[in-house]
């Protein structure tokens, strides 16, 4: 995983969120506008500039007790403000496994 510090150099090219895993149970969480974490991508604070992304990331990284491994992830904002993960990895983190667990 890219360390948050390295990622600070990265400039975002589109709408982004800050995501991490919650410390006590490992669940995927997104940084919210009210300085908390939510398991719902819909609750995530969305940033559009690199400065805002870095600020949101710094805030997320600072909460080392609440969540682990915060980083910036791309999202797509669809019509009506619906937020979708921006790549396959984030899709899997948000929606779960792409596979059937039982033989089919």
């Amino acid at each position, binding site marked *: 995983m890219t360390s948050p510090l390295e990622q600070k150099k990265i400039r975002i090219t589109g709408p982004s969120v800050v995501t991490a*895993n919650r*410390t006590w149970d*490992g669940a995927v969480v997104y940084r919210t506008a009210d300085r908390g974490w939510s398991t719902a991508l819909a609750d995530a604070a969305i940033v559009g500039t690199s400065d805002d992304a870095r600020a949101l990331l710094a805030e997320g990284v600072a909460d080392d*007790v609440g969540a682990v491994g915060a980083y910036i992830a791309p999202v797509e904002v669809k019509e009506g403000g619906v937020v979708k993960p921006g790549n*396959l990895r984030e899709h*899997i*983190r948000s929606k779960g496994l792409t596979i059937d*667990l*039982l*033989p089919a």
Partner: protein
Amino acid sequence: MYAYDELDRTLINERVSEFRDQVKRRLSGELTEDEFKILRLQNGVYLQLHAYMFRVAIPYGTLSSKQMRRFAHVARRYDRGYGHFTTRQNIQFNWIKLAELPDALAELADVGIHAMQTSGNNMRNVTSDQWAGVAPGEVEDPRIWSEILRQHTTLHPEFSFLPRKFKIAITASEHDRAAIKIHDIGLRLHKNADGETGFEVLVGGGLGRTPFIAKTIKAFVHGRDILSYVEAILRVYNQYGRRDNIYKARIKILVHELGIEKFAKEVDEEWKLMGDVGLTLDHSAIEEVRSRFSYPAYEKLPHMPDELKQAAADPLFERWRKNSVAPHKVQGYSIVTLSLKPVGGPPGDATADQMDAVADLADKYSFGEIRVGHEQNLALPHVAKRDLPQLWRALDRLGLATPNVNLVTDIIACPGLDYCSLANARSIPIAQELTRRFANHDTADMIGRLHINISGCINACGHHHVGHIGILGVEKNGEEFYQITIGGRADENAQMGVLIGPAVPYAEVADVIEDIVEAYLALRDRPEELFVDTVKRLGVEPFKERVYATR
């Protein structure tokens, strides 16, 4: 089976208490994630995409039915009802909560199971042949030595913060089922001209982004000296292994950079200087460990019981028997492999219900003992031949009698991008699609032995380099692509596969593999020539042509 005594039990309970304290300190903020990470890794706890993953050791692949039932319990109580058997005789749970981990560990410790050093830069679970102690022609049971090494490497005060992870595997058979040549240290048990037991010691094998086949550092180290010799290797590695670059920190790089002769000389010098530091294993020390292993009270049984003769009329049974049943060193008994590779299923996964059922079958048919192999299948090591038909019917009902052991659908795969935060691409859906393509068992039989190994990134947990066909997931512009290698193998003739050409997109992988297999069927000079031998004879060119001519 090795039976824990009070000392072993005390140690793993002390480890659970320590980890409970560490988790508590982490959750209270007393430990930062940076500090805690190493501590959790040393207890087998990773952070994956969706959750923490918990890797539990099955030392040298031997499990009791009671331990298997406890896995089922942990899967149900702390996870989502299933577990994943790995290529290094571990089981992984994918959805564990950190706050509950100490309780899960404590429940496992009750039955003599631990997760110590299943991750982290220390000596990992010591692995061995899953047929140890029952394979015909074995020099002796390698698990005695595996257990001696397990104890010696557990919480080692000098070598718990090595430059990188360190894996040891042991075999005692001509045919290497433990893949010792792709381990940091591989040990081949054999006897010298005087009939004394010792080891050929190999060093510096490994996969990942810089794969190497292990080289022999010493042709014979007497059994009594094996701990001091391993200690000498580790001391040289601990001091001189690279710590400036994580990708160059494994012992294979040190061996490669120094050359095996120079490295061997360093180790020999250290070994001589070491002298007698209490590591020499005299006869009574070895016997002390040996005495803690119990073996079944086998019956005197006929080689060909009536039950087996009658069942031979059933072609489905016969297919399974020929595929999944192997000779045992004791007449009248067999080793039965339980395929965890059903058509369309994730390779190596077992549900809690399956685990419980396997435990019951082990009690009924295999003296309560179960084995786990690096191919991600299970085995019942002591099945009376007369019980094979009944066992088969029971396994079939459980979905554990797919007659595909060592065939094209017996795929080794890492968890890939569905679970793993390191992965670039998915592994499991590729495996699932391939098992559907080759679902016809007649076709698979006709193709013969063919190992497909899939890794979702260059770290190579799916051992793609040493698959007869290797599939490696890479990322190109945000899309999943896969590099295909052929001709690799992990056994006593271990070698790395050769890349056949440019990576292919996700949707084309199964077609490409089908093309390669069809090319093989057309090219093999007789039905008995295995895929890997055809590749050896002809090289990659004809396969490359077939795959890329139309793409």
